[in-house]
């Protein structure tokens, strides 16, 4: 059977459908009733519905039923129905009456859940409202995007001085107040929303216009269904003002304000530290208090800290000394409070300290004054009685009122004899000078003389110091005079002595320094300053250890210190260092200075710079050592012989056979030890050398072990009555001399041969070439046609070559014979220019560049003919042996080279293989090129250069070029031709 859709809805809907009679009973119910309320349909149908309605809702339900019965449709009516389990459910009703049938059609919906929620919200809002309205803190609800106040409570109004919360609406809680801007505020709002909470310190002037400091806590909330931000503001204006006042107070305080940890380290220092105490606060913070407190006062300060910790409250502290930033010690007075956190734990001390130095000084002065007063009379008495001077007090009529003991003894009078008597009665002989003085003083003058010379009756000179002054009564009238006289002859003498002494000290060539008993320098004289470089000001107050070089041991100084502190004089050498770091030696005497009580009061050091002496000593030692080793090195025998011919000392020879052991000679007469002829020669030499104070030399021979030995002896006077004789074994020399003599003879023979050869070349050979050339010349003039004949030409060529060879050979011989040539200052550049001019027309020269780098004014002291020839030779060699593979050049330059002038001729020609030819380069008849050279050029050049006292060097590389350097001695030294004829 198919059901109708309405039937399906009726059966399955979650809503509750019903037909109810005006009689108060349900007529029809759908199954949803049973599902919602738990009752069976039969149970619900069997009883009037009012039995199921909540007793509180029955009246309302009856009223609505009446309306329906009157034909009214009712919507959205709520009431509660009891469930089978005893709980209630809210049902929302819509009803349609059918009065003609006496029934109504109604649909109900279970709204229990919604109603519960609504109730909860209502309750919560109620709670928030009451919390918000009545909260003891200022609260505002803010627009999370703009910061505008949406709601505010009474407290907020109070905070801002506004009557009604309504006036606060739409106002920004965050006005633009430095240091924050509205932008910052909006950022905080956003942060509060994002992070759930934000706490800020804020100053605003909203409402009354009064500056208000607040701590504002921002929290996002849902307020009336909107995302808002709740602002809870706490007024901290009072605290802020207090802080500000505190800061002003602290910043301007004349007291030092600080915070101190329990371990005595500062964590805060007020700016007043700088102005009052000379420290920047930063210099104080993190420093321990020991850094400032006087060591002697440290313990009372630590005790005080203990005391404050114990008292747990502000405690007045002690007076103690602290070091001012400028270095002086100041008296401070302190008050300190311990600060505890909320848990009652100690955090730090806050302290205030005050400089009471002046107060203290004033106290001391006061104390002083009182005690001074007390003692003044006593002291005056003491001074008067113990004064070196004689004191007399007279009244205005010049009667003695009082005289000191000294006066009595000085003038050999008795007090009772003179008190009350007139001055001039007691001393009738008093000179007019004094009477005048008295009159002037009675008129108010004070007269005195520090040194007054007067001749006593016995003729001796006395020096006195005197003073005469008026004294005044209480009415300030002159009541008399006070006379003070003192004989200072002794003092004067010692003063003069002292003056002399101090002058001596000041001008002493020794450096003098005086220290106190702790070694602190109290005085230095100018010599000290001159020597060490430390000024008087630098030295005084310092310790002599400032001079320590560090090269002498601590033990050394310890001994010195122990000696002088024991009252003894210390003498020694000190190795010290000057201000400029220079080391020096000084010979020092350090003596303690005693006072009359025998106590050491000073140490006096008198020191002399002995650096030079030391150096000289060292030098002497070195020199002695040097000479000794020198003497030892000499192979000769050395004897010291007395005037009468006794051997006193010796130094043996080595490497030679000896006539006798030198030790045997000692203390013996030389006439006993040597053959008569030798002894006689030596005795002669001794007398001559002593008489003429010169060295006398003689040769002699002795037979040693069967063979003749030759000796050379040199005798030199040594003092008045001794000589030193140096004996050299010249046996080998003598033998060599013979050889040399023989060789010389050979040499002479050779030389003669050479002379002859020279003659032959120069004359005999030359005659023939001259003839050949003469004939050919004549032939050329008389029969030019015949002269051109090939054979004649060959003959002419040969004769020219022969002529040239003879000329070269002759040139060499001329130089070697040492024919004297004159040296002169030669301008090198000009010589080269001339050579160039001479070579230029030579077609062979073409393409060779001559670079003349010789400075224009440069001169060489040389034989012009030789030097020109040398240069000519070298330059033309360069031209002759140029390379065809490149652009040729010859560079001539000059350089100074020690005692020589080096003329360098460098070319880039074909070069010479020096590895093969170096030895033979400058030899006669050497040819290195396949050219028309006869090999004389370089030989002649060498000979000429050597003849001028110079030398020549060559450097060359095949294919690269050659460099010839000619060294000519520099300057016009005594120089002659070097020749070995």
């Amino acid at each position, binding site marked *: 059977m198919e059901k109708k859709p309405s039937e399906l809805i009726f059966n399955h809907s979650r809503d509750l459908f019903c037909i109810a009679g005006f009689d108060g009973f349900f007529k029809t119910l759908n199954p949803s009733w049973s599902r919602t309320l738990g009752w069976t349909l039969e149970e619900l149908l069997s009883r009037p519905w009012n039995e199921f309605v909540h007793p509180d809702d029955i009246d309302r339900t009856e009223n609505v039923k009446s309306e329906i019965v009157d034909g009214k449709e009712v919507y959205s009516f709520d009431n509660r129905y009891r469930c089978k389990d005893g709980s209630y459910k809210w049902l929302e009703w819509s009803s349609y009456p059918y009065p003609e049938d006496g029934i109504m059609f109604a649909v109900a919906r279970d709204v229990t859940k919604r109603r519960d929620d609504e109730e909860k919200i209502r309750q919560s809002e109620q709670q928030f409202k009451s919390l918000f309205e009545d909260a003891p803190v200022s609260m505002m609800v803010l627009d999370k995007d703009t910061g505008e106040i949406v709601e505010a409570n009474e407290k907020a109004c109070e905070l801002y001085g506004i009557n009604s919360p309504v006036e606060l609406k739409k106002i920004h809680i965050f006005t633009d107040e430095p240091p924050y801007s509205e932008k910052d505020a909006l950022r905080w709002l956003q942060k509060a929303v994002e992070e759930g909470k934000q706490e800020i310190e804020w100053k605003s002037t909203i409402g009354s216009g009064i500056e208000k400091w607040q701590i504002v806590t921002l929290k996002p909330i849902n307020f009336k269904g909107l995302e808002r931000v709740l602002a809870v503001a706490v007024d901290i204006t009072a605290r802020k003002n207090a802080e500000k006042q505190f800061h002003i107070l602290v910043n301007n305080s004349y007291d030092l304000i600080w915070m101190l940890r329990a371990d005595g380290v500062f964590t805060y220092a007020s700016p007043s530290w700088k102005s009052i105490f000379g420290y920047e606060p930063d210099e104080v913070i993190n420093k321990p208090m020991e850094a400032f407190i006087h060591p002697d006062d440290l313990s009372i300060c630590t005790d005080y800290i203990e005391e404050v910790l114990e008292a747990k409250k502000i405690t007045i502290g002690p007076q103690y000394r602290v070091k001012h930033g400028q270095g002086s010690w100041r008296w401070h007075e302190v008050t300190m409070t311990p600060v505890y956190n909320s848990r009652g734990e100690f955090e730090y001390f806050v302290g205030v300290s005050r400089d009471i130095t002046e107060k203290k000084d004033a106290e001391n002065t006061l104390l002083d004054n009182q005690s001074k007063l007390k003692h003044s009379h006593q002291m005056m008495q003491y001074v008067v009685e113990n004064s070196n001077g004689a004191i007399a007090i007279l009244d205005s009529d010049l009667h003695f009122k009082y005289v000191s003991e000294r006066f009595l003894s000085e003038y050999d009078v008795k007090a009772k004899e003179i008190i009350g008597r007139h001055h001039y009665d007691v001393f009738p002989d008093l000179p007019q000078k004094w009477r005048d003085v008295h009159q002037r003083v009675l008129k108010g003058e004070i007269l005195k003389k520090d040194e007054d010379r007067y001749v006593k009756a016995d003729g001796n000179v006395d020096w006195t110091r005197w003073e005469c002054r008026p004294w005044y009564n209480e009415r300030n009238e002159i009541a008399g005079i006070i006379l003070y006289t003192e004989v200072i002859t002794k003092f004067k003498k010692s003063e003069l002595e002292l003056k002399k002494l101090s002058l001596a000290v000041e001008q002493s060539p020794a450096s003098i320094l005086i220290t106190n008993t702790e070694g602190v320098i109290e005085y230095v004289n100018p010599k000290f300053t001159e020597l060490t470089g430390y000024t008087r000001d630098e030295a005084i107050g310092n310790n002599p250890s400032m001079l320590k070089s560090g090269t002498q041991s601590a033990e050394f100084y310890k001994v010195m210190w122990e000696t002088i502190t024991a009252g003894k004089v210390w003498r020694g050498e000190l190795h010290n260092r000057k201000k400029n770091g220079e080391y020096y030696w000084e010979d020092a005497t350090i003596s303690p200075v005693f006072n009359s009580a025998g106590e050491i009061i000073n140490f006096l050091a008198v020191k002399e710079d002995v650096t030079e002496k030391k150096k000289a000593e060292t030098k002497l030692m070195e020199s002695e050592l040097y000479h000794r080793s020198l003497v030892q090195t000499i192979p000769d025998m050395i004897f010291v012989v007395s005037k009468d011919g006794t051997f006193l000392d010796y130094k043996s020879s080595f490497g030679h056979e000896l006539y006798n052991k030198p030790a045997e000679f000692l203390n013996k007469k030389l006439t006993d030890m040597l053959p008569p002829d030798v002894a006689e020669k030596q005795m002669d030499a001794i007398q001559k050398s002593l008489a003429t104070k010169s060295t006398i030399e003689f040769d002699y021979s002795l037979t040693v072990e069967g063979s003749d030995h030759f000796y050379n002896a040199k005798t030199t006077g040594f003092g008045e009555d001794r000589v030193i004789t140096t004996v050299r074994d010249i046996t080998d020399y003598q033998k060599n001399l013979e050889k040399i003599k023989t060789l010389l003879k050979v040499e002479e023979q050779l030389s003669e041969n050479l002379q002859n050869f020279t003659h032959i070349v120069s*004359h005999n050979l030359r005659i023939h070439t*001259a*003839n050949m050339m003469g004939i050919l*010349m*004549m032939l050329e003039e008389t029969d030019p046609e015949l002269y051109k004949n090939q054979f004649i030409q060959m003959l002419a060529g040969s004769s020219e070559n022969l002529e040239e060879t003879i*000329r070269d050979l*002759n040139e060499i011989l*001329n130089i070697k014979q040492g024919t004297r040539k004159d040296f002169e200052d030669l301008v090198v550049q000009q010589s080269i220019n001339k050579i160039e001019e001479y070579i230029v027309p030579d077609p062979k020269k073409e393409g060779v560049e001559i670079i003349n780098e010789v400075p224009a004014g440069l001169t060489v002291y040389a034989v012009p003919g030789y030097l020109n020839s040398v240069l000519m030779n070298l330059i033309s060699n360069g031209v002759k042996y140029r390379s065809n593979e490149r652009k040729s050049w010859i560079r001539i330059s000059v350089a100074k080279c020690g005692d020589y002038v080096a003329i360098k001729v460098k070319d880039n020609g074909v070069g010479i293989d020096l590895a093969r030819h170096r030895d033979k380069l400058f030899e006669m008849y050497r040819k290195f090129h396949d050219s028309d050279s006869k090999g004389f050029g370089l030989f002649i050049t060498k000979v000429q250069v050597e003849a001028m006292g110079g030398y020549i060097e060559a450097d060359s590389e095949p294919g690269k070029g050659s460099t010839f350097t000619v060294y000519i001695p520099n300057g016009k030294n005594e120089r002659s031709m070097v020749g070995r004829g």
Partner: protein
Amino acid sequence: MKEVWLVEDDKVQVFLLRKYLEKSKLVDNICSFENGKLAYEALEKRSAAGEPFPELIFLDINMPVWDGWDFYRSLQELPGKETVVIFILTSSLSEHDYEQAKRFGLNDNYLRKPLNYQAVETIIKQKGNLQAG
């Protein structure tokens, strides 16, 4: 120029010089001597006879018997020596010889062999002019 003497032992030189002098046609009489001694003796004779000396003498140095210097030194003893001009003509290349000539004041009159015609002519002409003037 009337007379020129050649004091020369080398026949080739005498030949050559004689040829040049003849060629110049400036000299009337040419005499030659093989050494210094012969030349001196001839001069001595002339001096004794009061006859004039030749105006010019070409003097070789290296000669047997008396060399050129021997001749020159002896010449200084003869009266009338001022009338003769001496030219040293030598084949020597020796510096030593030149130095010697210098000592005798002959350094400007020091010739080295061989002479060409030009040189001979110049010398004769100069000497001729000198005497003419």
